[in-house]
């Protein structure tokens, strides 16, 4: 909403400077988006008198008009205007003036004669003054008067953002000025008078719930009127278009007191008015030039033949007023806010009327608004006769809420006296009634003590409330065990060199398919997605993670190790539609680097799993499997199991064909569901370090195809040797004899220094067992 400082002064003549007003508005909860001066461009436009008018020597339709400016300076300009003769006073803009349409005036040569500046029409100044070219000014200001002074000087306009509760009552200058007057302790001029409705049956309200109060009044006026300049100025300052006096006046009343009025041309209305629900499929041509097909949810104002207007939202073009209109049928109504709001949204017509009615208007304004309209017509001198009028429905009695100053003090944590609280409320238009506080008729938002507390807090300013710290029994805050466990996993992975990313929860079928996954029937679809790539809730973190690899690799050739621990979504389970998944991705390409290449390996990813499993006591196990998810490389795949034997995820490589889609030759991935239970409880088993030296033996073995490390490792365990501490592969090569693996066996005893014989005995046992698998010592 735009508010004009000048307009506010109508209600509060002693308003302090615009800066103070801006600060007060902020304190009262009205967000000031901007505060700008208005009228600057009118400054250079000055009042001049025409002294001579002669025909242009080279053009029939042009004249040379000489004008006298301040201090008797004469200037001659070329003009095409049909009016403006010696003795007329007109408005002149000199070269360099910036016009309202953005043009900057220059001295132009028209048919051989220089024309320094321009004589202006009302339209060129942004106003309406009836059918004349130059604006012949009949005011008595001295020559040289600036047009800005005629307007009353500069104005300041505030662009305000209203919260929904303020929009209920505050979208008008009257309410806004009431707040300012209250907070500044200044007198406020409420300016309301009541219209006396007659009892002529002019309308029927069929749906009284949707339209509890409906007023109609006929005014006979002289045609060809012009809206008073002061109203034009105020409407222009808040960015309103000037349309037609009958409409300009309704607009003025709307922004002045917040009551939307509608003016019908009475001669275009056939018989009595009906306020009814539209018939399904009924068509109405609205004032914005569109044809609207209505439904029975829409409320219309109709005559005996057709719908004339979409009630509370927009008039129809068939009954619109025009310059020829002499009988105005003025509607002042009170509608059910929700009905209007819904129609506004359904038809996407965000008219000023709908934005007011849709939030709820002051029922009392049904009576005050026509009185204001009538006064303005009279002021313009065009009101010939007040015709018949009628109001259907009754103005509801004022509401009261109990006055509970102690409750207000407690809620705010202040020590304000009853008197101070009451005084504040009264300044805002509340009154002390018999049973409590009487709520002003426009304040639908106020319901009880917390609302009244908010009113006084706003009025006196939240700064008046001294901050304090609540006291409760001291007890430490508790994090959630489940989430702390997840934090441990995050910290561990970050320590292991992985970067945490956060991707959006949305994805789409095509993005899932691109990652080689099949969209599951269990996905949850977004009914109103923002874009095609975000039509469903991700069933897996993987597509988003691969895309993160892709977007990074598209820009720079770096190796990436990423993880995310976040929810994925499924309709699998009946009442909780998300579970937490951990996904780790790593590019597996060697990158040249001095002094040795950086060559990440899939086993490093597996190592991270092994390490994390121990570090976080996850209780997981894994096994190489020949097949799994279709997007995974089947030759390098581990299935990961929970203690109960169920598969919780996989670790391996994405099929290279799919990896290439994401700018990477090879991508290692590990994804698994994170269980809701924290890690397995593990008793601490810290033992003493061994005091006797270890003995190291490296064995080079020829291992047949198909024998896995796992098998060999298991054999080493079958030995049940208390001195064989570890068996790790340290070298591998492939020759014509097959695979050669070098294993390092480490022996150590807790209670003595080992002899060669003891070590040799274990090695021989080991070799004997592996012989059965076809393993031999390399010669």
């Amino acid at each position, binding site marked *: 909403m735009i508010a004009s400082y000048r307009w506010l002064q109508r209600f509060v003549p002693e308003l302090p400077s615009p800066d103070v007003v801006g600060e007060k508005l902020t304190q009262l909860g009205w967000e000031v988006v901007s505060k700008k001066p208005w009228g600057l461009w009118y400054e250079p436009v000055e009042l001049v008198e025409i002294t001579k008018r002669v025909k242009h020597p080279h053009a029939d339709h042009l004249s040379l008009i000489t004008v006298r400016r301040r201090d008797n300076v004469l200037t001659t300009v070329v003009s095409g205007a049909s009016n403006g003769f010696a003795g007329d006073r007109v408005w002149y803009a000199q070269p360099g003036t910036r016009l309202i349409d953005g043009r900057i005036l220059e001295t132009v040569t028209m048919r051989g004669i220089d024309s320094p500046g321009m004589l202006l029409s009302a339209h060129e100044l942004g106003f309406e003054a009836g059918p004349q070219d130059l604006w012949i000014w009949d005011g008595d200001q001295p020559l040289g008067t600036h047009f800005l002074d005629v307007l009353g000087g500069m104005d300041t306009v505030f662009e305000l953002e209203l919260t929904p509760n303020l929009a209920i009552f505050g979208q008008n200058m009257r309410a806004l000025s009431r707040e300012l007057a209250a907070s500044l302790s200044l007198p406020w001029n409420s300016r309301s008078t009541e219209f006396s409705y007659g009892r002529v049956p002019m309308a029927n309200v069929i749906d009284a719930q949707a339209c509890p109060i409906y007023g109609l009044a006929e005014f006979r006026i002289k045609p060809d009127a012009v809206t008073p300049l002061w109203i034009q100025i105020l409407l222009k300052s808040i960015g309103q278009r000037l349309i037609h006096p009958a409409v300009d006046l309704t607009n003025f009343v709307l922004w002045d007191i917040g009551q939307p009025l509608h003016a019908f041309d009475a001669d275009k209305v056939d018989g009595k008015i009906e306020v009814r629900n539209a018939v399904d499929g009924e068509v109405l041509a609205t004032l914005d030039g569109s044809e609207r097909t209505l439904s029975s949810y829409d409320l219309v104002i109709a005559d005996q033949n057709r719908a004339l207007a979409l009630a509370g939202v927009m008039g129809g073009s068939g009954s619109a007023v025009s310059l020829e209109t002499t009988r105005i049928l003025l509607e002042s109504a009170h509608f059910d806010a929700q009905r209007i709001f819904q129609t506004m949204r359904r038809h996407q017509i965000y008219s000023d009327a709908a934005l007011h009615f849709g939030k709820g208007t002051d029922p009392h304004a049904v009576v005050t608004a026509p009185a204001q309209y009538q006064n303005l017509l009279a002021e313009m001198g065009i009101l010939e006769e007040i015709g018949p009028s009628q109001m259907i429905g009754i103005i509801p009695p004022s509401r009261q809420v109990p006055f509970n100053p102690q409750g207000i003090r407690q809620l705010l944590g202040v020590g304000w006296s009853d008197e101070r609280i009451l005084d504040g409320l009264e300044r805002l238009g509340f009154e002390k009634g018999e049973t409590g506080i009487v709520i002003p008729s426009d304040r639908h938002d106020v319901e009880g003590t917390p609302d009244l507390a908010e009113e006084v807090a706003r009025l006196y300013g939240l700064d008046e409330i001294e901050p304090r710290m609540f006291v409760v029994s001291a007890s430490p805050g508790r*994090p959630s065990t489940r989430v702390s466990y997840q934090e441990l996993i995050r910290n561990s992975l970050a320590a292991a060199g992985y970067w945490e990313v956060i991707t959006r929860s949305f994805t789409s079928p095509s993005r899932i398919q691109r990652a080689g996954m099949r969209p599951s029937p269990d996905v949850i679809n977004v009914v109103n997605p923002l874009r095609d790539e975000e039509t469903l809730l991700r069933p897996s973190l993987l597509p988003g993670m691969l895309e993160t690899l892709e977007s990074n690799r598209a820009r720079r050739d770096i190796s990436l190790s990423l993880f995310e621990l976040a929810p994925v979504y499924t309709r699998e389970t009946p009442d909780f539609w998300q579970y937490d998944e951990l996904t780790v991705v790593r590019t597996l390409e060697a990158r040249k680097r001095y002094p040795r290449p950086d060559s990440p390996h899939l086993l490093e990813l597996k190592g991270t799993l092994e390490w994390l499993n121990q570090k976080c006591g996850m209780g997981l196990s894994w096994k190489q499997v020949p097949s799994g998810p279709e997007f995974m490389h089947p030759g390098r795949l581990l299935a990961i199991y929970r203690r109960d034997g169920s598969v919780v995820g996989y670790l391996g490589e994405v099929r290279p064909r799919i990896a290439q889609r994401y700018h990477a030759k090879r991508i290692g991935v590990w994804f698994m569901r994170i269980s809701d239970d924290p890690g397995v409880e593990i008793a601490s088993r810290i033992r003493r370090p061994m005091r006797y030296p270890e003995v190291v033996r490296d064995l080079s073995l020829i291992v047949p195809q198909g024998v896995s490390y796992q098998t060999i490792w298991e054999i080493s365990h079958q030995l049940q040797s208390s001195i064989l501490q570890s068996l790790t592969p340290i070298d591998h090569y492939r020759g014509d004899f097959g695979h050669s693996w070098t294993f390092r066996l480490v022996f150590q005893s807790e209670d003595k220094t080992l002899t060669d014989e003891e070590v040799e005995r274990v090695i021989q046992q080991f070799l004997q067992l592996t012989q059965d698998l076809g393993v031999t010592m390399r010669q």
Partner: protein
Amino acid sequence: MDAQRLDSWKDEMTREVMKAESLTELQTVRHQWLGRKGKITNAMKGLSSLSIEDRRTVGQQLNGIREYALDLFAQREQEMELQEETRQLQEEVYDMTLPGLWPDVGLLHPITRTRRLIEDVFLRMGFSLEYGPEVEDEWYNFEALNIPADHPARDMQDSFFIDLPGMVLRTHTSPVQIRAMKKYDGALPVRILAPGRAFRRDDDATHVPMFFQVEALVIDRGISLADLKGTLNIMAHELLGDGIKTRFRPSYFPFTEPSMEMDVTCASCRGAGCRVCKETGWVEILGSGMVHPQVLKNGGYDPLTVSGFAFGLGIERLTMRIFGIDDLRLLYQNDMEFLSQFQPYTGRPGL
């Protein structure tokens, strides 16, 4: 074996030692003199064949020579070791101006770090952490928070709906207020903090459709707006530093009454007024208020005997503020070049 000959051994040995060019050669010379069959060793073995008188004089002489030899070899060995080392060190000169190899350390997302910072502040103040589902029941997300189906506030909250009837992607973390109240089941005090994701249909430089919020709720007897202000001031100082100033403005949320927003001094201009803060010197940081009586009732608490406050804070906005980021979308592009800038120390050990 005469004394003169023995005297000449010293010169002979010294010459040989000086001639040796490497430790190996020196070892050979040492062996020739002091080894098992070395000249000195042999001579000492031969003492037994001498007369007692000669044995004494020659023996003394031999001992002197042996001492001399031991010294000579040790000294020369040490010299040569030093030379050897010097040579090695000279050979091994390395260009230490070459760039170092950095450790492969990982990184937590700045959103995670900021979230933990906030959690830490409130855990220290005795708040417990609570969580709720992201796919939320419309009742918890709207109705229970005093946002009925046709309330104009739904005008403000443009929500994502999903093909699960009655469910919505939660538009804020506020439904956790209701869930926590139900969990506490009337017990006092309620002091909870609920971090989590929320979703709204917005996407521009200051809004993303998925974002993180932290919700706080305190319910007890006699909780007031003054307590809320006090708590928020403490939070602002803990999170943004002691120099920060706060300002409170009335606002509107359907689930609080009275409602207020907190502004803090603009980081760009430190309160002087600039483009970022629209010349006001202040930037909005959170919405808050006293829990609406209806919301207390919906959570099973009696508004006549208890009161409470609640607030919701956008983690992104705070992250941007703490790290000095001007475009929210950068946080979710996961560009490593962007994220890598969060590795250096930020001046805050707790972050």
